[in-house]
């Protein structure tokens, strides 16, 4: 009697997701990466919160972005986490087992994207809410109070809500971008180098481009510069890109990377 036959009607995707979840949660390093991402994000946020000053006459500090400074560091850990979920499979040869178990390779990729996205979503929610909490505790003591109109807005404020949700979304998109690149280059070390290079390159290179048109173009093009513009709550017109377009750029990067990763996965022998 073949039990497998009975279960053939079961959706492949659900099985694949279950398998990916098991793989992810049983690797001991993953939990540490999640913890590190949360701690470092909130930690750098606390450092940034503590180093802001504001005179009593008020200032132009974007308190939401100050609180979310830690994302710049946390995204690196998230990227490593996402890359390792598939890079480690290529490095150890586990990928051959995975593909044998789920021959529909793109379904496997989709399942991994769902699981990684879900784990990162959870991590991002904790990091972002923690950063906000830290900002609410620290910033008023640094002179950023409601009295001078510089307080961290409440979550009921639509711009603030958008900044918060987009920051969470940004981290998920960075994870998908990393996952796609790891599928495309099939090596964790090279993938981490590429992802971190891609993220940190644009803000630095934009610094040397003195031509305002090109400066703006680069900042719009870069996943980190455009993605972080989505956190803005103050003086949005001065940003290189609007929040909605900014998060759109990151989404395009993530989609492009996943498509490239999917193409490589389909065409190449594992």
């Amino acid at each position, binding site marked *: 009697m073949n039990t497998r036959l009975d279960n053939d009607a079961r959706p492949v995707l659900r099985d694949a997701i279950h398998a990916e979840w098991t793989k992810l949660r049983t690797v001991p390093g993953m939990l540490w990466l999640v913890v590190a991402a949360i701690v470092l994000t909130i930690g750098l946020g606390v450092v940034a919160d503590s*180093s802001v000053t504001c005179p009593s006459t008020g200032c132009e500090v974007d308190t939401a972005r100050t609180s979310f400074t830690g994302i*710049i560091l946390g995204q690196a850990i998230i990227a490593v986490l996402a890359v390792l979920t598939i890079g*480690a499979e290529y490095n150890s040869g586990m990928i051959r087992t995975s593909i044998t178990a789920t021959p529909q390779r793109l379904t496997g990729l989709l399942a991994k994207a769902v699981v990684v996205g879900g784990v990162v979503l959870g991590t991002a929610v904790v990091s972002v809410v923690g950063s906000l909490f830290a900002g609410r505790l620290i910033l008023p003591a640094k002179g950023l109070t409601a009295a001078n109109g510089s307080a961290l807005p409440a979550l009921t404020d639509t711009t603030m809500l958008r900044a918060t949700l987009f920051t969470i979304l940004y981290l998920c998109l960075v994870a998908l971008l990393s996952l796609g690149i790891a599928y495309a280059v099939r090596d964790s070390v090279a993938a981490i180098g590429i992802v*971190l290079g891609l993220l940190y390159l644009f*803000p630095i*290179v934009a610094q040397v481009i003195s*031509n305002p048109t*090109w400066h703006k173009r680069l900042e719009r093009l870069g996943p980190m510069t455009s993605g972080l513009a989505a956190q803005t709550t103050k003086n949005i017109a001065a940003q290189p890109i609007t929040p909605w377009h900014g998060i759109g750029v990151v989404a395009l990067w993530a989609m492009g990377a996943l498509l490239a990763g999917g193409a490589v996965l389909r065409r190449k022998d594992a």
Partner: protein
Amino acid sequence: MTTNSGASTVPPAPYRSQVEPGRDGFLQLVRSEWTKLRTVRGWMIGMAVAGLITMLFGILGPLGSGAACNSSNPHGCSAIQPPTLGPDGEPVTDELSFVHKDVSGDGTITARLDSMTGYYAPANGPADSLADLSKSLDPWARAGIIVKAGTTPGAPYVAVVATGANGVRMESNFTTSTQASQGAATGSAISSATPQWLRLSRTGDSFTGYESSDGVHWTAIGTETVAGIPSSAQAGMLASTPDHGSTTYLFGGSSVDSSSALLVAQFDDVAFTGDWSGGAFAAPPTLNQDNGPAPGAALFQNTYTQTGGTFSVTGTGDIAPAIAAASDDTKSIEDGLIGTFAGLIALIVVATMFIASEYRSGLIRTTLSATPRRGAVLAAKSLVIGTVTFAVGLVAAGIAVPLVKSMETGDGIFVLPTSTATELRVIVGTALLLALVAVFATAVGTLLRRGAGAVALVIALVILPYVLAVASVLPAGTSQWLLRLTPAAGFAVQQSLQEYPDYAQVTSAYVPAAGYYPLSPWAGLAVTFAFTAAALGLAAYVLRRRDA
């Protein structure tokens, strides 16, 4: 037992290698590591990519800026103004109200300063007369006497000035400023009841500054030899005050919170003696480039009025070294090396794989069987990766720096002049930085034995602090500490911009975002070296104690 007739009964000698024994000498070890490195095609490509992106991003700068010169700038290249340069070729700010007259030969100028009053324009209010302005004396407002080669901005000078809150000072040529041990500590303490007497006398190229509270008992501040001021020069009174406010660098940009400021200084008993007596003051006072369209621009003019022997001098501006980054049309040679950190990421990946892949494939066991002296293996690996990355860095920086410089010059951008020694230090220092970080990555790879973790850790320790500090994500203070305490400190070796610690108002703008590192070039590189040495020592210890 049968044997072939005629054949020797002696069995054939076993094969002996013709190669000399002793193949585990250090040189052979280095050769084997070099073979391992060069035969992996991906790593060699990685090295080449590292060199290329180090150069390419530097070239992007003048390419992007060149477009500014052609299209978006309606005035074309000719509108690009070179910065004001001081006598030593450094960028300076030379804005002052200068009530001057022709003097020649040796002489002395003496003046009594009766008051210094500072004003600044309120944020949104009117600024039509002094009554509309808020009162505030900038710590670096200056009023005093000066001898200057001419009225061209940037001309050499020697001055004795009272400042807003930095005492009486003798200053020369934008880079030297000595505070007198006595004299009014703050400009607001000066009044007609407690005046500040100032004196500056010239003998050839030797200038001596004095200060006095009563005009009778004089205290010498110092004697300086300043070349470049011809015998026929300009001498007189000056007044200047920097803009009220400050610049903050945060979250990828700089915000300037400032408003125009004005200083009114009252002088009396102005006396020119020696060869300098006689002659009339030229009018109006000159030397102020700070004349942008500001509210109440008419008010913020350099003027003076004379009533009998009393002069009331009104001035704006600053006389100090300038920050190169403040101008888009001014670049320094290290701008050609902006891609270093990107190339470094590729090098970190290769350098980590160089050891981590041995652990992954199990080759490490073969390596350590062939050479049981494990410390020597690590030394050979470090030597090979260090030398190769040094060569890559030397070629990349050696091409990028002169190439970008000539491209920028061609685009009409002013590149700050540097000595050949500085240029060499920037190029060789960049190569050394790459080599140190690569060896650091190999050591971390040995410690962790996992490529992914090691790459992420090294990037987090070397690249991330640099990005956070230089892209002005973090406030200046935090950025400076990052560039003191992390391996990213080594990027300081690329700084060619000069700092002048005598000028506290400028020092506050010496921030990483403007290209100024908190440590001196070699001290910064020493921090990176210390990290590398520590990681290498730890890796050697762990490698010997641990099973492969």
